[in-house]
């Protein structure tokens, strides 16, 4: 297919009336702790008549995240004629709100769930139908498969997919139906190595109502998975699940209220296997990417404490308020809660067992991994839009994983991983009339993290406290860690900005197998006399060579840790004492 599409593109480019545009995103970096990458992505768009052709080339040795690749990475040919659209090649599609299909290519976390095949769309104002057929190879880094590496994938599944998505609109009402089937080649951890053949089917319906005062969205999905039985060469029943998503927005004159509700039960796994999608199958697939009940933090420190949604089994809601006080002041706040739909405990046979009936609202019992978060923010302008200030407050509490829970008539004994954080982000900027501007961001966070131990005997509580993972200078556990993120930048519009960033923690913390700090601080840290174990300092210069060509240079260190994007989180290695260069250009 690659050869065919490249031939068509070249033929059209040479002999046809074509327009040619594109962009380059290039990044290079090298640090003292061996973090080296050199990666360039070149996208080209060729437009000829009713055809559009997208080609993406990658040259990496190695990339920042993912496998090394040199050559044509992605390609797509599109034909558009009135209501008809035909796509051939790599496709990224969202059907509904993504409960069945939401394929994306997110380079920041190395998540590529694209589908290579054919897509046909027929779309009018009142009706649309999408047909899709193709193959999706999905690679990821997972500790549940041999050869784990935080930067390079060590596990791949392959899906052969076909599906159809259709919607009808009548005035303010819209109703839709979706069906998607995949035949999956799923490698499992067995000796000798084996790959299972699994058939996954998803069927969903959604309804939308819009008017000027209220918007409503509801989607319900049912999933079935069957396993090929090699003995009788047929598929046998294995697992089924379901999911419900709802969203109601109410609009008032100066503010709006948004409510989102999730109830996902694509597959209910016990606490030990909750994140193991290598040995478990028939659960959520990589090409699904439904909405979450929480919010991915938009500031550095809040992002690091983001909740990782369990798409297989989570029930929750989020209530947001958004409004303006005057034209130049706005406020935003949310309350978010979620948990698993059941509690779990270890039974007399030392196996995890579900307890009770599934709930429809989040629970507070730690055995159901509850999560809650609150956030409030106010921002606005003063002095004729020259001074901008934003201040917020965030609180989150997450009972992440249940490690142990046994109980009898007279006793309870429970251990779980716990994290809570209070964060205050403050951001202010001032713009001078001659194009100069100055900007400061300061975030302060008080973070508690560790193992929470609870023990009760004959109605008396024997233990109910956190064993903190943070240590003081004498390596004794300390109650909380105080984190500070500070950035000061100066800019001259429209040409350049220069920013100094300092990321500071108050205690030592476990490395999770990552090489956190080497034995030397960078020149900036030395200059400022900073403790090299607890500070990451860097300076970055961004220069707009032209309005469409941006060059960035960075020297210093960047703290590793959790990076969340699109509802998915992954651990990123730290970058110690090195240089980074980035180029973004359109042509």
């Amino acid at each position, binding site marked *: 297919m690659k050869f065919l599409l490249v031939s068509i593109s070249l033929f059209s480019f040479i002999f046809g009336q074509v*327009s*040619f*545009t*594109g*962009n*380059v*995103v290039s990044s290079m970096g090298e640090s003292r702790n061996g973090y080296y990458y050199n990666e360039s992505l070149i*996208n080209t*768009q060729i*437009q000829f008549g009713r055809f*559009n052709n997208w080609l993406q080339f990658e*040259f990496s*040795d190695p990339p920042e995240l993912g496998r090394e690749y*040199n050559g044509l990475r992605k390609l797509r040919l599109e034909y*558009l004629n009135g209501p008809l659209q035909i796509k051939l090649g790599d496709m*990224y*599609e*969202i059907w509904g709100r*993504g409960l069945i299909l*939401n394929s*994306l290519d997110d380079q920041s976390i190395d998540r590529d769930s694209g589908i290579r095949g054919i897509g046909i769309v027929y779309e009018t104002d009142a009706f649309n139908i999408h047909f899709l057929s193709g193959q999706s190879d999905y690679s990821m880094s997972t500790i549940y498969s041999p050869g784990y590496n935080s930067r390079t994938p060590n596990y791949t599944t392959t899906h052969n997919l076909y599906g159809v998505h259709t919607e009808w609109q009548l005035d303010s009402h819209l109703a839709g139906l979706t069906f998607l089937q995949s035949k999956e080649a799923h490698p499992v951890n067995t000796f000798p190595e084996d790959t299972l053949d699994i058939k996954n089917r998803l069927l969903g319906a959604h309804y939308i109502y*819009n008017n000027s005062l209220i918007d409503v*969205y509801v989607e319900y999905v049912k999933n079935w998975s069957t396993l090929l039985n090699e003995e009788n060469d047929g598929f046998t029943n294995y697992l089924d699940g379901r999911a419900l998503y709802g969203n109601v*927005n109410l*609009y008032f004159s100066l*503010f*709006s209220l*948004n409510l989102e509700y999730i109830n996902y039960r694509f597959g209910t796994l016990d606490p030990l296997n909750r994140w193991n999608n290598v040995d478990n199958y028939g659960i959520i697939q990589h090409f699904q*990417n439904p*909405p979450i009940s929480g919010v991915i933090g*938009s500031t550095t420190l809040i992002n690091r404490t983001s909740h990782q949604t369990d798409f297989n089994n989570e029930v929750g809601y989020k209530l*947001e308020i*958004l409004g*303006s006080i005057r*034209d*130049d002041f*706005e406020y935003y706040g949310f309350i978010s809660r979620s948990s698993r739909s059941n509690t779990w405990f270890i039974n007399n046979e030392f196996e995890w067992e579900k307890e009770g009936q599934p709930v429809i609202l989040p629970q507070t019992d730690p055995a159901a991994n509850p999560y809650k978060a609150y956030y409030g923010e106010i921002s606005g*302008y003063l002095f004729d*839009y020259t001074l901008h200030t*934003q201040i917020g407050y965030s609180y989150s509490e997450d009972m992440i994983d249940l490690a142990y829970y046994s109980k009898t008539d007279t006793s309870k004994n429970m251990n779980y991983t716990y994290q809570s954080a209070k964060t205050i982000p403050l*951001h202010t900027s001032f*713009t*001078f009339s001659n194009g100069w*501007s100055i*900007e400061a961001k300061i975030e302060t966070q008080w973070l508690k993290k560790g193992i929470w131990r609870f023990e009760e005997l004959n109605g008396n509580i024997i233990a109910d406290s956190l064993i903190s993972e943070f240590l003081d200078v004498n390596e004794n556990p300390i109650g909380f860690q105080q984190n500070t993120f500070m950035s000061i930048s100066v*800019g*001259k*519009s*429209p040409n350049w900005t220069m920013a100094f960033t300092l990321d500071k923690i108050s205690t030592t913390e476990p490395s999770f197998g990552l090489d956190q700090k080497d034995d030397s601080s960078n020149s900036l840290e030395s200059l400022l006399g900073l403790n090299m174990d607890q500070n990451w300092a860097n300076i970055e210069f961004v220069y*707009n*060579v*032209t*309005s*469409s*060509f941006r060059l960035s240079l960075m020297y210093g260190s960047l703290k590793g840790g959790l990076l969340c994007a*699109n509802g998915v989180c992954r651990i990123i290695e730290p970058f110690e004492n090195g240089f980074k260069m980035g*180029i973004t*250009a*359109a*042509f």
Partner: protein
Amino acid sequence: MKNLYLISFLFGLMLNAEPNKESTLPNLSFKLLDGSKISLDELLQDGPALIDFWATWCAPCKKEMIHLERFQQKYSKDGFKILAISTDTPRSMSKVKSYIRSKKYSFKVALDPNQQIAQKFNATLLPTAILINKNREIVWFHQGYIPGDEVEIEKQILAVLNNKTTEDTSE
């Protein structure tokens, strides 16, 4: 050797990087917040337009939009329009209409949740502002937002409006 080619290519770009002004954009169709659709030709019917790619989680985008609203108000009598294309995914899509309504923005807002339109416009950073003349040609392309960039944006809008006036007079 491949790195040498790449470096040469990037160096060439550095010297010549600017949007391909000779290229005419296809008559793309955009899905608006209210569910209706607008084509590029309809958008450019009365004059030039600025297409701005943004997201609710992008702080610089929101800072820039305050000025875009001002330009829409100021130059709409000259046929100038703003189209703000939200790249929010289903994760934050529910917030787009709320934000626009709370700020009482008058420009049109379109949705691009899988970034397929952004890809066609080569918008890899947020915000990206693209100024398009009546002939569907890109006349200015700008990535990112530094406070103060609104001065340059207005300068470019005025330049394209003056060109439009010259063309109208010569016709």
